[in-house]
């Protein structure tokens, strides 16, 4: 498994930062959850849809967990995004959220599901636990800078 290294906006290594990618086409929800993470010291990347989320992941900016809405603009919804992440970035847990109860048959890459309206604190705690559960990496196994 590749050992992720977190980078700041300049592409410099930031070994202590936790980083999460929030994906939601509703800006107020995206902003609220992103701020909850930032107040706890997380680096937060924000994407308005799956296309942006994939651009961020492909940029090499390390993401340690993804929190994504299910319902997003065509052609890739949150479930499909989770499947893609499970294939290309298998060490990155994906947590889904939706306003309708979980009827997702294909749970590939889905670590958890939160029904909206969710408790912001519980989401942040759960994702923090998922990140902490990842195996730690020795410093000499850092990825190259994107």
């Amino acid at each position: 498994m590749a050992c992720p290294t977190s980078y700041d906006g300049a592409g410099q290594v930031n070994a202590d930062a936790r980083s999460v990618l929030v994906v939601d086409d509703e800006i107020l929800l995206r902003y609220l959850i992103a701020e909850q993470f930032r107040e706890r010291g997380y680096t937060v990347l924000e994407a308005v849809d799956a296309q942006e989320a994939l651009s961020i992941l492909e940029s090499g900016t390390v993401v340690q967990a993804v929190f994504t809405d299910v319902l997003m603009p065509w052609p890739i919804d949150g479930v499909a995004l989770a499947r893609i992440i499970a294939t290309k970035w298998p060490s990155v847990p994906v947590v889904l959220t939706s306003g309708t109860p979980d009827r997702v048959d294909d749970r590939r890459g889905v670590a958890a599901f939160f029904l909206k309206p969710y408790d912001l604190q519980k989401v942040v705690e759960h994702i923090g636990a998922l990140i902490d559960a990842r195996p730690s990496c020795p410093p000499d196994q850092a990825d190259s800078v994107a």
Partner: protein
Amino acid sequence: MNTPAPPTSTQETILVVEDEVYVRMTVAEYLRGCGYKVIEAASADEAIVVLQNTEITIDIVFSDVDMPGAMSGFALAQWIRERRPDLHVILAGTVDRAVSAADDLCENGPLPKPYHPQVVVDRIRRLVAARAAKRQR
């Protein structure tokens, strides 16, 4: 759902409006590094949702000019002038201008600049070029 708390002390909040995710994320990170609180909007429509929310305090709007959708940066600036004349609006149509404007804001930011603004330009260009190269394969 919890509503956001108002910004503490004198930390100013910048609303960055930019549809290109690589520009938005790197400029936003730079501004946060200077001590600003930053809200990211991917379109003028998203920006208006934020601006119409009375519980969110915005001090500066920093917007791209050309954006997809019904409203450009110019139209957004016009909308703001009519409804929120108190807001400082910065429009930037190119990456260089956006980073230059961000650098100007960082000159007056609460914290020292985290790194040289050319680093931001270089990173954006590198990311955009890498994405273009991948798409051509």
